[in-house]
């Protein structure tokens, strides 16, 4: 059943294209052993599917992103999160390619997540929502791709958690993809990354307004906790160099230190802003679930840690992209994937782009990334 997506947050740009949502009545089996039934996938498409259905590119979004990759976000009113990458004449050229981007399950932008109503109780799921994994997200996307009548994707592309999904696509459905572009990601979440996520989750859970996850029932929102989670996470997305360059020790709207705890420094005020604007568009329980999904990601776990065993002779071609100053998903983690793929003779390229912008570089203006993706996609489309 296809309908307009429902967002739990107020829409600042109700005129923006809200995309579509498709609800599947067949259950979605999950790694936890539980299942979701029914479940909804909200998505956007850009460009047109060609007659032989060979030009579809699936973009997978990162932790706090959504399906609005190349058009105004109806909830925030802001431009899409990858407008310099995706669009007419852009590296992922919507004049040539049919681009699909879906909100992950567990999310809060129209796909089934913890803020939706649990059909069993008639109340919001809250913590009764099953834990989902990156593989579960990909399973849901596969159902969407089938629903759209596409047997084989030209490419699956994503950064950060989107890169994890791209890797999972290659592992789960190698025959259904021609090319994969995992960007700034890893085949497993590191101890350091799990640690940062746990700090964020504990901040949310420590907020009295979280109410054991049942804040919707109490008409409260754990905004303070979610904002702190976002502030902590945001630090991991940027490099020390970028922070120093942008803020240094500059003071915010004042000539001297206040000798109080109100934000003196520009970096403090910036983080407060990041936190405050995040809570207007994101659901706290979704944050818990999606960070957990990333923590659980370990592609080689079922293969005794041997990453090369994940991929077979039918592996699609890869272009793995990393950034030198990304300390959240450092180049060495990305390169590990390339070596594992090389070991099974897969066609894999590994690109390590010099950038001082940290993990967020994949969302920013990085001409070498654009060039690499444009060249890789064009070749994949032409052969």
């Amino acid at each position, binding site marked *: 059943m296809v309908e307009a997506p429902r967002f739990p947050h107020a829409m600042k740009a109700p005129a923006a294209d809200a995309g579509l949502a498709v609800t599947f009545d067949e259950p979605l089996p999950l790694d936890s052993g539980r299942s979701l039934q029914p479940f909804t996938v909200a998505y956007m498409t850009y460009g047109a599917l060609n007659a032989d259905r060979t030009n579809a590119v699936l973009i997978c979004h990162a932790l706090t992103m959504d399906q609005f990759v190349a058009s105004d976000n109806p909830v925030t009113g802001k431009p899409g999160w990858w407008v310099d990458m995706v669009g007419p004449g852009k590296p992922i050229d919507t004049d040539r390619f049919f681009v699909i981007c879906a909100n992950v399950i567990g999310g809060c932008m129209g796909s089934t997540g913890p803020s939706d109503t649990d059909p069993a109780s008639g109340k919001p799921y809250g913590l009764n929502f099953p834990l989902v994994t990156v593989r579960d997200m990909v399973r849901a996307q596969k159902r969407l791709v089938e629903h759209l009548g596409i047997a084989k994707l030209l490419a699956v592309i994503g950064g950060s958690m989107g890169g994890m999904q791209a890797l999972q696509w290659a592992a789960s459905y190698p025959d259904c993809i021609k090319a994969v572009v995992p960007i700034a990601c890893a085949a497993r979440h590191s101890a350091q990354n799990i640690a940062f996520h746990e700090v964020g989750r504990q901040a949310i859970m420590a907020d009295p307004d979280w109410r054991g996850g049942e804040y919707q029932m109490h008409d409260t929102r754990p905004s303070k906790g979610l904002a702190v989670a976002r502030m902590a996470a945001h630090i991991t997305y940027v490099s020390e160099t970028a922070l120093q360059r942008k803020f240094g020790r500059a003071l915010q709207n004042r000539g001297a230190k206040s000798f109080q705890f109100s934000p003196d420094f520009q970096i403090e005020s910036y983080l407060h802003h990041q936190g405050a604007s995040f809570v207007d568009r994101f659901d706290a329980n979704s944050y818990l679930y999606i960070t957990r999904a990333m923590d659980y990601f370990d592609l080689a776990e079922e293969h005794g840690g041997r990453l090369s065993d994940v991929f077979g002779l039918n592996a699609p*071609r890869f*272009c793995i992209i990393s950034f030198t100053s990304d300390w959240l998903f450092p180049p060495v983690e990305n*390169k590990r994937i*390339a*070596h594992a793929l*090389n*070991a099974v*003779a*897969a*066609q*894999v*390229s*590994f*690109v*390590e*782009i*010099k950038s001082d912008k940290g993990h967020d570089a994949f969302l920013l203006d990085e001409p*070498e990334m654009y*060039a*690499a993706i*444009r*060249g*890789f996609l*064009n*070749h*994949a489309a032409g*052969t």
Partner: protein
Amino acid sequence: MSLRPDLAAIADMIRPGARVLDVGCGDGALLEHLVATKGVDGRGIEIAQANVNACVARGLAVVQGDADSDLGDYPAQVFDAVILSQTIQATEKPKAVLNHLLRIGRRTAVSLPNFGYWKVRLGLLSGGRMPHTRELSYDWWDTPNIHLCTLADFVDLTRECGAAIVEAHALDDKGKAVRINPAKLTDSYMGPNLFARGAIFLLKKN
């Protein structure tokens, strides 16, 4: 597009359908040629961003990295041929690099400029300054070529690394590759070590 003569000579050494690793593959011209004409399974390692992007756009499998730090990640004897063209003189540890190449590949093709070439010798002898030639065009203070050697020196290194020279080709004054007897590189003061601009060696581990 025609290949540089030294690359063409290397291409002639590669068997059809081979698994090939080109270390320092540049913009991928040689690899693309080998894929197109010999159906090889080609892979590259390249450090420069623009070259890496050029390889990716050609549909080649290239890993951005460098010979000094990345070769240790490759398992032994997985490639039929490993190529190192005009790169060994720019590595930090040429001996370690050569040992890795001999370990990774069943055959190793190495091309290098000859610091014993008569114009190089004459340049240093007559001018008293670091020589500039077509192959070695940099000033001493910004050259990437930090480990230059003569062809005879390189033959010594192959012995040191336990490698046998399967074939050797000298690049003559006109840049043409001519097959030579490698013994002549160390046995005689005249010969290719004096007259060749560079050479290409096909090596295998003893």
